[in-house]
Structure formats: C-alpha cells, structure tokens
C-alpha cells in the first residue's frame, strides 16, 4: 500500500515545517518518490515507521482506507505478543521516594504536555511508570534521558507534583559514563582537567580578553581595560567558554554594560568557566567541583558579589550547588542573576536605555532554568524582570503564548544542543517555532545560550522563521546610552 501526500500535508500531520519534511526526504529518513501533482508516494511501511518514530497515529491503515483512530481494542493483550514483564520484588534505586514515581495517577498530563512524548516511544509517564515498576535498567539503557531536554513542562503540569525532572536527572546519573553522549562527557572531563569546557589555554584566553578590551575601549568605551584578577573588586564575573572560542565579540556586551554602569568587577584568569555540564551529565560531583572553583576565585580575589553564570543551566547549577553544598558561602557574598544585576543598574539609574533604535516587534523566550526550574527550586522565576528589561530596550513587544511557567522549551535544553539527537531536537523545537511565528515577533530575546543557538541557527532555518535572536544583555548593550566619562569615574568610587 502507498501513502500519498503533499509536503505541506505531511508537515501539518507531523507538526513540523515543510523544510523538515524535505530534509527527511532528501536525507532518506523518509524514503519517498515524487509523484504527479507535487505529491510524494511513500510506502506504507516507511510511513508507519515514521509515525512510530514520532509517536503519531497513522492516518491510513492497511486494512481500511478510512482515517481516524484505531479501535480501542487494538491494545488488548491478544494483539501484540511481547513477552510479559514479570513484576516482583525488585530493588528500586531510582524510585527512592514516593514523590518520584509512586504517587503518579497515570493521568497523562505530563505526556500530553511534553513536546516530544511519543517520539521513539519516549513518554514521561512511561518513564515514571518504569521506574515505579522496577524496570530501571531498561530506562537507564534507553536513549530517552538524553532526548529529553529536562525542560520540566511535564512536572509543571503534574497534579500530584511527581518530581519527573529529578527522576530523569537520577536516571542520567545512573548511566554508565561511556553511555553519556560524547560531547557532554568530553565537556565535563575537559572542564575538570583543563579549567574550561573547550580546553582554552590560559594564555590564549588572557590575550584574547586583553585584545577585546582594547578594541572596546577604542570603539565605545574610552579607557576600558579588561579587569583580570583585580583583587578587591565588588563583582566576580564568569565567561561562557563558547564565546572566547567562537564569538569573542559576545563577551564585550557585558563589559560595555559594566563600563556604563561604573561597576567594579573582575574576571579570574583561571577557572573562569561559566558553563556547568555536570548538571547535564548527571554528574553531581563534577558540578560541585566547578562551583567550588568559583567560590575559591571569590575568596582569592576578595570579591563581595557574584554574577551567576549567564547561561540558563549554569545559573541553575551554580545556584543549586551553592544552596545545597555551600550554604555558608551565601552569607559571605551576594549573588546576582543576570536579571537582578541589570534591573539593579536600571532602577538605580546606573544605566540608561533608549528603545528608539529597536523597531522590530520583540518577544522574550523564557529559559526553562531561569523560569520554572528556578521558581520551583529557589522560589522565584525570572519572568517579570525579563519583560521589564526587554521592553526598556524595544518599542514594540509581544508575549509568546503560552509563556512564563507554561513556556515551551526551545528544544535544545538539558544538553540537547550538544547531543547527537538532532532530528529529535528539531522536532521538539517545532512548538517553539510555531509559537514564535504565531506571535509575529521579528526579534526573539532570551537569556540562555542554548535557547539562542537553537532558535537562531536551527529553528530559523528549519521553520523559515526569519527572526533575529539576541541575548538580553546584548539587547541592553545595544540600547545603552553611554554616559560621559566623568560620571562613570565618579560612580566607580
């Protein structure tokens, strides 16, 4: 039997863009033959395989041409002859407390909310069920924990507050290290061994930082010198290693803001990394070590405040580690999230922003870590702050629907940007892409590197979004009204 469909029909059926369908056809994921009237002819088996892969109900069945759902009887025990799962006394290491799985009502809210449930049979409800019934090895061995972006949409809708993200983190932690996706594993190891995820040598970094500082001084911030290892400054700042590696200009957005605000700040020459992939790898030991390095830097440089790393996951990991393992350190120095700091500058009049330059309709994409995870773990999600700042820089603003706690993940969270599961990542992002298109926004502002890259480089291309994507601090830096030099100097005291 042949399934015949146009590209846009397939796109609608699978909830993705026409580009994605064409990519599937061109890459052979979906073997299809071009037929008359711009239709593609697909063998039933290939079509069914694709449906299975993306958890879709086939619109066509071999025994009847009528569309619609399969009769409910099809899941009765008679049909598939898989071997029964024997339930018995099993150690339940994963499911250590009732809140992780036992209290599940199997209502399906989580599975309905998860953008990729059904894909390769991934389903948060099923994962919880398997943990509960003791099928731990099977879950741990599957690729599900890595296709999941740990976005927490499932958890946010769970009526019983099952800690699904926590469970998935435990599953990731239980994986043999050689089963952890290579990029993530390598990032963690490199960071532990060489101080940053990408293994950038100290001298290279220092030279680059100096050079970028000089350029900044020349272009917009006269007198600027990159403050490396300056003892006794107020604020310690970390650097996301992807920036010096791939887009060094990106570092200077913050520097420009600090300069304008007259901030007293410094970067450490060692262990300056602002990424913490221990969180993604489920390697809490690594996570703790990386945060301890930051604390050591503060103590060494005698700073009184820390700007928590800017990327969503790193903010979460650092704050989590501080609260869990180093609660006393929170008495020693003040912590700022990027939002806290920017908003403080704005409210205290230390920076002035002019939205005149930004005429595009802007929207803000909430990072899961800054949003609902932060709300749950630390009691506060950075929703309003983000909007106040974005609106201060943009004349026209629109919200995504839904957003804030109910926001959809970009599709690249939880390390998925670095994972080998690209097709799933794009599929996951289809909802984000749809949200952005529906909003009509032409500028997407976000506060997380993964989100930025996924929307800018992946979703833009896959879904023909044609949107500009900026970091919040990039947006702020661009909207800065630079004060005269003397005011800055006066403030620095």
């Amino acid at each position, binding site marked *: 039997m042949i399934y015949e469909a146009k590209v846009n029909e397939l796109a609608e059926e699978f*909830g993705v863009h026409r580009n994605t369908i064409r990519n599937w056809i061109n890459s052979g994921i979906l073997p299809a033959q071009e037929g008359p009237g711009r239709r593609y002819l697909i063998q039933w088996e290939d079509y069914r395989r694709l449906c299975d892969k*993306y*958890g*879709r*109900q086939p619109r066509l069945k071999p025994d009847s041409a009528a569309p619609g*759902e*399969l009769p*409910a*009887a*099809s*899941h*009765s*025990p*008679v049909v598939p002859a*898989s*071997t*029964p*799962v*024997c*339930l*018995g*006394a099993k150690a339940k290491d994963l499911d250590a407390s*009732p809140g992780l799985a*036992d*209290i*599940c*009502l*199997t*209502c*399906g*809210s*989580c*599975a*309905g*909310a998860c953008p990729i*449930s*059904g894909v390769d*049979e991934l*389903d948060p*409800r*099923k994962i919880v*069920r*398997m943990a*509960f*019934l003791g*099928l731990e090895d099977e879950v741990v061995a599957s690729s599900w924990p890595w296709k999941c972006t740990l976005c927490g949409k499932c958890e*946010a*809708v*769970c*009526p*019983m*507050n099952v800690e699904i993200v926590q469970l998935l983190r435990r599953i990731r932690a239980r994986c043999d290290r050689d089963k952890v996706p290579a990029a993530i594993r390598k990032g963690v190891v490199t960071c532990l061994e060489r101080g940053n995820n990408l293994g950038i040598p100290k001298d290279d970094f220092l030279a680059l930082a100096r050079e970028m500082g000089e350029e900044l001084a020349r272009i917009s911030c006269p007198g600027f010198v990159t403050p490396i290892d300056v003892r006794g400054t107020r604020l310690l700042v970390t650097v996301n290693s992807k920036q010096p590696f791939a887009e060094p200009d990106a570092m200077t957005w913050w520097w420009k803001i600090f300069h304008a605000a007259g901030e007293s700040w410094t970067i450490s020459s060692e262990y300056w990394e602002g990424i913490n992939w221990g969180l993604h790898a489920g390697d809490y030991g690594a996570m703790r070590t990386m945060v301890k390095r930051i604390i050591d830097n503060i103590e060494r440089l005698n700073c009184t405040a820390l700007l928590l790393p800017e990327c969503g996951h790193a903010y979460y990991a650092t704050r989590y580690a501080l609260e869990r393992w180093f609660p006393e350190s929170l008495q020693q120095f003040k912590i700022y999230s990027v939002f806290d700091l920017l908003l403080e500058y704005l409210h205290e009049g230390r920076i002035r922003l002019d939205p005149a330059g930004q005429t595009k309709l802007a929207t803000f994409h909430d990072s899961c870590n800054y949003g609902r995870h932060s709300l749950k773990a630390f009691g506060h999600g950075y929703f309003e702050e983000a909007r106040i700042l974005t609106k201060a820089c943009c004349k026209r603003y629109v919200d995504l*629907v*839904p957003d*804030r706690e*109910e926001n959809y993940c970009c599709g690249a969270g939880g390390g998925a940007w670095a994972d080998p599961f690209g097709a799933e990542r794009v599929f996951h992002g289809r909802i984000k892409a749809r949200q952005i298109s*529906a909003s009509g926004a032409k500028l997407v502002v976000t506060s997380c590197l993964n989100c930025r890259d996924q929307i800018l480089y992946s979703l833009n291309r896959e879904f023909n979004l044609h949107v500009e994507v900026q970091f919040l601090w990039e947006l702020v830096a661009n909207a800065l009204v630079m004060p005269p030099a003397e005011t800055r100097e006066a403030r620095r005291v």
Partner: protein
Amino acid sequence: MSEQAMIGSVLVVGGGISGMQAALDLADSGYFVHLVEKTGAIGGAMPQYNKVFPTNDCAMCIISPKLVECGRHPNIDIMTLTTVIDINGGAGDFTVRVLEHPRYVDSAKCIACGQCSSRCPKSVDDSFNIFMAKRKAIYIKYPQAVPLKYQIDPQACIRLNEPEKCGICAEICPPGAIDFSDRGQERYLRVGAVVMALGFQPFDPGKTRAWGYGLYPNVVTSLQFERFLSPGGPTGGVLVRPSDRQPVQRIAFLQCIGSRDKNRCNNEYCSTVCCMYAIKEAMTVKEACPEVEVTIFYLDMRTPGKEFERYFEQARTERNIRFVRSRIHGVEPKGQKGDLRLHYINAHGRQVEETVDLVVLSVGLETPDAMVRLAEKIGIHMTPDRFASISAFMPVHTSLQGIFTCGAFNGPRDIPQSVIGGSAAAASVAALLNPVRHSLTRSLPPPPEQDVSRQEPRIGVFVCHCGTNIAGVVDVEEVAAYAATLPQVAHVARNLFTCSQDTQDLMVQQIREKRLNRIVVAACTPKTHEPLFRKTLKSAGINEYLIEMANIRNQNAWVHSQEPELATAKAKDLVRMAVAKVSGQTARKPLRISIAPSVLVIGGGVAGMTSALNLAEQGYQVYLIEKTQQLGGNALHLYQTWSGEHVPRFLRELREAVQQHPLIEVCYTSTIVAAGGHVGNFTSLIRTGTNRKRTIDHGAVIIATGAKRYIPEEFEYGKIPKVVASIEFDKLHMHNETRVANGKSFVFIQCVGSRNRQRPYCSKSCCTHSIQSAIKLKKEAPDRRIYILYREIRTYGQRERIYNQAREMGIVFINYEQHGPPRIRKADNNVLVEVWDHVLHRPLEIRADMVILAAAILANPEAVALATMFKLPLNRDGFFEEAHAKLRPVEFHVDGVFVAGLAHYPKPLEESISQALAAAAKAGRLLSRKEIALEPNIALVDPDRCDDCALCLGVCPYQAIKLAEYRDGEGVLRKTVTVDRILCKGCGICQGTCPKRGIDVAGFTTAQLEAQLDAALEAAAPAEEGRP
C-alpha cells in the same frame, strides 16, 4: 438539659436545596424554622442549572415549587442577606447572633414591579449568569426568586457611593420602597438546634493561566456552560461561541479542574459531581444538535450512583460522545479566530493535537473561605479538605452537639445526596427536640371557602411563558388572546413563570377581584405543579379542585420545538379542552382520616435500625422486622468505614440502643406475607419464626431490605483456592489465616460482576474497600507487593485521600478495560495473573499469593415480593425505584412508603445511614400531622343510573367496590354498588366498564371528558387557515 428549657425552633443556615429540604421537613414536623441565606434569595446553586439528570427536568422548574413552599410556609421565616456571626449555648438552647445586611428596599413595600431596575442607569456583570450577562445595580437574583423583592448592590449603586447623585429608583418607585438609609442590623435568635447547610462554591480556574480561563473567551466553566444551555441564560439557550457568537462545532470537556490536584490548587479530593454533570451537559448538547462533536477528557469516569453507569454507556454508545482517558494539561489558542488547541496522549501512547471551538472546564466544588472561617469560629471541626468533619456513623452531626450539617458542606455531593442530607438533619433535630415539638409553630387557617356551586362559571386562564421554555416556541400572546374568546372565560393573564411566588400572590388577588371560580393554568405538568396551584386556590378562598392544567410545555413546546406555528395551534387546542373540562368541575372535600402513630421498618440492617431508632426517639412506635435471628445485616461483614472508623463497635452500640428502646419492637425471623391499607393506615401480616401470623397496624413503612453479594463465576473463583471474594478475604485477613499471613504478593481485581452487560451499574463501595484492605496489608508488612487491577478508581469525594495514600505506600494500580480483562492461571503454589499495562502498553505478569475479587452487590431477590405487596416499582437491576431521583430520593409515588439503604442502591455505610435518617424524617413528618387528607378523586356512584349489574366489582384492582343492599323509599329491597373512599385510588376502570354511566371518578366525570373531547374535535377558532 431539662425538657422545659429546650427551644422548639431551629436555625437553618444556607438556603440551597439541602437547607430548604431541612427547613421544609422541620417546619412540617412541628418546629419553627429561621432560614438564613446570605444572598438576596433562597435556592442556592440549583436555579443556575439548566437541566438535571436523569429525567432531564428543567432544574428551575422542579425547584420552583419548593421555593414557593418555603416562601409561604407559616413556620419558615426566611432571612435573606443575612449572615451568622456567632453561635453560643448548647444543644436545645442556642443563641445565635446574625447580621442582616441592608437590602435598601423595604421588602414589605416592594411589589416587584421592576420599574426601578428598568430605569437604573448602572449595569454590572451578573454573578447569577457567571458574569456573562449584565444586571442593574438594583435587581432580583433571578426571575423566580423567593422572596421576590428587589435589592440594591451597594458596590454598584451610584447613589450609595456618591450621595448627591442618581437616586432615580427612589423617585419612581410606586410604593416608595427604596431606602438608601437602610443599615445592617444585628439580631439574636434563640433556637433549639442549628443546621449548617453552608454549601459550596465552584473552583475558580482563573487562579492559573494554564487552562486559559479569563484569557481566551471560548474557555468557559461548566457552570457558565449550564447558563449557555439554559433558556433563561445569556444566550436564551442557544449554544454559540462567546468570542464570535458563531455556532459551536467541537466541544471538549476537561475533567478534574480544581479537583484531584495538589499542584495548581490544593484540592486533593474528588468533587464527585463533575463526571456526571459533564455527561449530562454533553447529552443536552447532543440531543439538541447531534452533529456537534463532543469529547470528554477524563482520568477516571466516576459514575457510581444509581442509573449513572447506564447514562454513561448511553452517552458513549448511543449519543456518540467521545470519552478519552487523558488529562489535558492546558489549553492554548490556535490562530486569531478563537479556536483552541489541545495536545494530549491517547490510549495508545500516541500524540494527538486537536482543535476545538469551545472548552468546558469541569470545575470542582470547594468550601468558601468565609464558611470555613465561620465553622472555625463556632468550633466545628473541619477535614483537611476543608469540609465539615463528620463521622460515617453520624453523617449529619458536627463535632458540636445540637449543631447539624448537610449538603456539600459535608463534602462534595450531588443533589439527591444533598436532599437526603437535609432530611437526615431534620430527622436528627426532630429526635433532639421531640419534647418541644409544636411548641412554637403556628397554623394559619385558610380563608373560608366560598360556595361556587350555584355560580355561573367564571374561568380564569393563566398562560405561562416558563421563561423561554414555552414562549420560545409557542406564541403565548396569541394563545392568551385566543383564550379570552372562549366561552365563560372571564380573565386571562400571562406570566413569565406562573409557578413563581409573586404569581401566586397575583393569582389570589385576581381570583378575588375578578370573582373567578374556575382556573386553568396553561403551563407544565400537574404531576409536579398541581399541588402548588391548589394551595393558591385555597388561599384565594375557592375550592382547591376547581383547577385544570393544560400541559403546553412538556406535551407541546418541548416536543414540537421545531414547528412553532403548529405548536401554537396545539396550545390553543389544549387550552380550549381544559376550559371545557374545568367548567364542569365541582368542589370536593378531601377525606380526613387519622394516622396510626407507628411505623413498620422492614429490614434490621444498619439502615433499618437507624430509621427505627430515630423514629422511636421522635416518639413513635416502631415495629422492626428482621428475617434472621440477629440485627446487623450486611454491616456484620464490615470492619471499618473509609475513614477508618470501627464498624463492629458501632454496630454493637446501635443494636443495643435499638433493643433497649421501649418504643421499638424487634420481630426476629419474621417476614411480611401480606400488606394492605394506605398511607396513615397500613395493615401488614407478619409471619414470625414460629410460623405464627400476626397483624400490625402502622401509619408508614420504611423498606430497608438490604442487598446480596455476587458469587463470582469468573477469574477461576471456586477453582483456585487462592482466589477469594473480598468479603471472604476480610474474614481470612482478620483471623490472619496462613494464606494471608505468609502472603507476599496480593492482587485485587475490581468490578467483578459489576459494570458489565448483565449488571450495568457500579457497586460503588468496592474501590474504597479494596484500597483499605490493601493499605492494611501494606501497613502490616511494607515489603508485601500489592496490585489493584481496576477499570476506574472510584474513590469519590474525600475518599480520594486513601487512594493517594495507597499509591504513596507503593501499591500498584493497573488499569484494565472490559475487553481485556486480566487472565488468571494456576502456577505451582501461586496464581499467575497476566494483565495489560495501560501506560507501558505491554503485558505484565504477576505471581500472586492471593487474588481478591471485588464482587458486585446485587439487589435482594425478595424485593420483588415486597414491591408487589406495596405496589412499588423496581428498577431494571431489581433495586427499589424512588419517586424522583433528584428531589424525592427516599419516597415512592405510593404515599407513606419510604426506602433506605442497599435496597435502594449499593452504597457505603454513611450514605445508608443518611438515607435511613431521611426516610425517618419523611415518616416522622407524616406522622406528626396526626391526620391525613385523602385525595377525593374517587369513584362516585350515581344511584339513579346504576342498575346493580356489578360489572365494576370484578375490574376494580383495589377491591374498593362492594355490592350493598338497601331499601328504597318504598321499602323495596334493592342492590347498589358502594365505593370504599379509602381504598379507591380513582383509576377509573370502573367508569370505563360501566354500561350505564352509573359511576364516575370525581374530577374526571364522563360529562367532563366528553366536553373535553368535543372541544378537541371542535373546529378551532380563527387564524387557523394555515393548518394542514
């Protein structure tokens, strides 16, 4: 407390259906009632509903007679806009401080003409219509409100906020009833007991943005949806989308909004009623527009009540309502046109995305904060779910003696349970205050009845709009104009709701002013409404039987809604026939007979004992008939209630109380063999254990004959010794028998014999029972593995707490469907259970040490004989069928007979006790009247025509006709038939049989029926050319 010090009046707090029922039962049982209601009118939530399951009666229509009855009862004092501040004192003598809030309209003066409202310049959102329509700042709550008095909303009123402005209403009010200086005042009431019927509020889904409530106009709550469906609602009953007023094509109901959720709210409990109301609303939509696609997204369909499961099945199979087991996490907009997108996982684990026009949120019930605070202040204990804490054994008693509670304040419940609760509270109050019964009541004798027999008929015709129920189809103006042209019609009026209280007052006035002596009400059915109008005639000083109802709603507007012109013509025909019939109507006097002050209670289980004890405490003689040698019934097999209370101890105490009460005579090993008589004077023949027969005279009967258990034929029951039924398991468990003691793995299978083709009903208590057993097993040894295989977990209400507890303890719940039941086989020393997992979509295999079958509850087969003796109906499953599923849940159409407990339907202990108390309330209310008026609609013999052929004797089903001899004027011995006025039920078979027209049923004489028929066949009046 000494008897002299008790006060013979009662405070009922809350004017909803439960409070109204308590008030009516108490006021009719000899107590004066203060009915306190916080809003401007009584009625509670029910007037907002469109229709009620299962009869699809219009909710307003069935509650309206009760509203009016409360409104005009001489022993009910309704205090609206009143809140209770504090209660002091103790059982028998409470002092209650209440605050009457200002109405700003003098109730004594207001004539409800509505001029104030029509001229009021200020419009605000109408809370009665859940903010989907507007009302004025001066308003009545709803058109049929009791009391029908306007009130001013102080928040909205311009004048009350800016003293110099507006005041139009005061200027134009004809009787000058507006009083802007009205102030709230505190009052103290002294009462002997208090009934708290504080009610519920619907959950507000706008607390979270997830469901889009308040964000997207096409997301509505179920209560708003009721208003949309209601003819009196904001769209006049036409279902359109709120956003664009376009017809609706696809509707999704989302269940468990604000229930079974500790994330988005803190309501862990199940709200009990939402599954059924969602089905009902879906059915209403499908009946009106079958092409609309309706889907109900649910977690467990909880339809455990009587006839619920059938309704659910009917919805699924006959009405094509789609049921999807998937809880919807949120609602998102799709596009700019108001469409809504739902994303969910179907039963096969596949992703589905659907677009619908309208989302209905099935919102749960919760106790309003103010009520929780009031309860706390008074000192009533509350449950963690914020409902009144009650014992299953005393389901209407609060933690404070003398303060009773009923309705949804006791936990989420539906209308019948609330009505039962109201009556049960009344019974408990009546038992407490029995010594001071009739001490504070008053009776208002009706005005003297004028003799109209010599007057020419002057007929008054009252044509009812019934909101839009009739007027939406029938041209009522045309019908009224036509009625005025009919002979002998002296007066015609139209009313928005003829049954409302103001119309009753109006009718009285018009009967007097226009000297009307026959009345036609063209409205609905005499079955529900004739008693109301008869009372009105009585108070107007004419005989109550001079009325005829033309049913232009049920038999016309409802069934011919698609053909308005023909319906109007038919309405005229019906009115013309009624006028023809009523002109031959004569005054009749009811037969008053005294009531035997004793009750026969059949069945010595918990229900029977509870009824017996309460009635004895109310001072009536009780005969309790038990067919075995001991009292206790099915409760002898129970160990604990759902909340863990110990049943055997309770049973022992109840049994002792019953056995020791001087007014209760227990007849052991006894059965009823024959029954005769009628309400107030029954005579039953009892066969006792020694085969002796005995006759008992009694005024009322309570049937509490219990139920039987199902002996399973499935799941290898009886073949594998480790497979046992739950009642057997309880015994083994209690004795810690080796199979249980050494067992490590237990499997419970639910719905064994229930919810299948032979027995399409839910046995209601088995889910709770199995979960309790499972928890006990787990507590004894936490390493035991326990599995519960279920089709739907039905731990309704606050029972959800034990379901949550069970899961928290690690008990595994596996859902199976009827078409894929678990398979059981023997393996070595254990039992192998294979079942399909509903989440993994894979088969599971469990090696069980014991398999426990939750077997169904069956109707008692002996019910058939009793039903025949007392002429009572049984439903299709063999349970006794009550008079009205909603409002008369313990009564029958046969007066004086009541039902309680499992004989009515499977139910847990506290519901049996509640119902038993309600039945006792009804029996007590009857017996307190001391005498009863029998319907005079009986056969009358015309001796001039009767030729004593005696054909009528044989056909009379009630043996009411006898042949008698008498001597005529000339002393000749003659025969004639005589009719026993008590035995005759007025069925009219004799009338149809008599060849000489010698016997007529009063009110339905052959002459009247002929006149009616002639009128029907008469060429109807003008403007009839268009008729086919």
